[in-house]
């Protein structure tokens, strides 16, 4: 009896250790940093190291804490909403993310649908072919498009050879280039979730529809599309959320006159060294993304736990 209890306690301790190690890591390096971001977003810029005020001083005790709290302010947020630079930057990011997600859907769905209808043996290979580019560097894939979209690049050469355009068009440093780059980089994230739901679909439903005299396009619209909705929504969120904060693609392919919010944050931080402003930009961005992120997490958990 005694031995059994001690074995049980030992097991409980082992279980606690399993939970504790990743938990502690994530609290230290994921949660704590976010609390610091919130705190610094309430601070002021200063010509000091670190470049913000107030700095919390533990040795000053209670009085120090009071001074510290009194030093916090919402000034950075006021600036964020009064300066049109930030507001347009947020709106532009949301707009680009929404349009690219739509483009990704229009391109990704037919590919996923095609793969799901391919012969079983071929499906695995096609899925690997779609994932494979994702394993090569993101930066390389964006850079590859810089090669193609330059003024004397291959796209202009090809279009002129085909007689579609007479003289070179500017592609690089335009919004078109941003959309091409985003669709190219995020395509696998759209195709895979949609394929995963289409592949599980019971095809006897389509047969039943056909037997009852439903035309194929109508069966597709009334049966296939609604059943693929979980994968479609997951894919759309998986693309939309990170695209809003995208930095590399607009920086390398886009123009310099208008920035997405990821670029604004980057510039505030690295070029202007305004850490409090950069933190406030991050906090507001996080607030914008929290709702879609929670929906996505909810869907993921349900997907994984529903499979049990």
């Amino acid at each position, binding site marked *: 009896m005694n031995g059994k209890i001690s074995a049980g306690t030992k097991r409980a301790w082992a279980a606690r250790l399993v939970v504790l190690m990743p938990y502690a*890591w994530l609290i230290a390096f994921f949660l704590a940093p976010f609390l610091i971001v919130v705190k610094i977003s309430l601070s002021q810029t200063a010509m000091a190291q670190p470049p913000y005020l107030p700095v919390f001083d533990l040795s000053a005790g209670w009085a120090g804490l009071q001074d510290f709290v009194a030093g916090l302010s919402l000034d950075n947020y006021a600036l964020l909403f009064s300066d049109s630079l930030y507001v347009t930057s947020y709106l532009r990011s949301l707009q680009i993310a929404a349009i690219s997600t739509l483009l990704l859907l229009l391109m990704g769905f037919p590919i996923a649908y*095609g793969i799901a209808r391919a012969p079983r043996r071929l499906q695995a290979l096609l899925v690997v072919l779609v994932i494979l580019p994702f394993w090569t560097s993101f930066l390389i894939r964006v850079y590859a498009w810089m090669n193609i979209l330059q003024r004397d690049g291959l796209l202009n050469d090809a279009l002129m050879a085909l007689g579609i355009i007479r003289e070179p068009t500017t592609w690089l440093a335009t919004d078109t280039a941003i959309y091409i780059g985003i669709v190219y980089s995020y395509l696998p994230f759209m195709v895979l979730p949609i394929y995963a739901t289409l592949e599980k679909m019971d095809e006897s439903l389509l047969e039943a529809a056909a037997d009852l005299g439903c035309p194929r396009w109508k069966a597709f619209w009334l049966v296939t599309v609604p059943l693929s909705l979980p994968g479609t929504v997951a894919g759309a969120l998986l693309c939309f959320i990170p695209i809003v904060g995208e930095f590399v693609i607009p920086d390398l392919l886009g123009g310099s006159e208008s920035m997405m919010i990821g670029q604004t944050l980057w510039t505030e931080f690295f070029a202007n060294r305004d850490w409090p402003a950069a933190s406030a930009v991050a906090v507001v961005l996080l607030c914008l993304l929290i709702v879609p992120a929670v929906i996505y997490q909810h869907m993921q958990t349900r997907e994984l736990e529903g499979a049990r």
Partner: protein
Amino acid sequence: MRKGPSWLNIASIGLGLAFLYIPIAILVIYSFNASRLVTLWGGWSTRWYAELLNDDAMLDAAWISLRVALLSASAATVLGTLAGLTLVRMGRFRGRLLFSAMIYAPLILPEVIIGLALLLLFVAVDVDRGFWTVVIAHTTLTLGFVAVIVQARLIGFDRSVEEAAMDLGCPPLRTFLTVTLPLIAPAVAAGWMLAFTLSLDDLVIASFATGPGATTLPIRIYSEVRLGVKPEINAVCTIMIAVVALGVVAASLLSKLREVKPVPVPGPI
């Protein structure tokens, strides 16, 4: 869906794959271009690869990236496997919601936010930024990916084998090492590979977390690329693509070999 694909299906797959692969193919071909002008074809040559061998800054950056990726992928695999176990096996414990939120968030949140947050933490606790801060940042970024892969594998397998071992008096740690771990090994290996590639690939978070003397390969490439297309960069990229392609082929061959062996585990209930 047993019905064969229509011409429309075949066309969309074909166009999709062409869209995915043509830019990479062009990049690879132009890395063998003899001309310094990236847009003019001057015949085949390997001169940019030769020049790369003399580019010490690039080679240093590659070596740093490789070490960061090895260390952070290994740490993320240990922590991520434990996290995956926690999500599947620990049931409902206090703080579970926060835990799973912290696992999933790095998978989708924009990198600029995570990078900024980590940098401000490093400044607040006053550590010198450099090699180790990048390792920590990448471990944090990638452990969620490992956790999700391991979680998916754990959900699909039969617990009775583990219970049998425990009933026969096998202690939990030993049960884990001799029964559970071999069963989830493919997922753990896949998680490690993904973490490794993600670390090798990351520009944004590394830019925030790094300090003097720890320029990773993507940071180095980015600083060159900002100034325009260069044949040397095409060569670096081609080498990276070749390494990844070899890795993926090797991994799929290995998993094919494993499949041949009989697997003594019944499928999911």
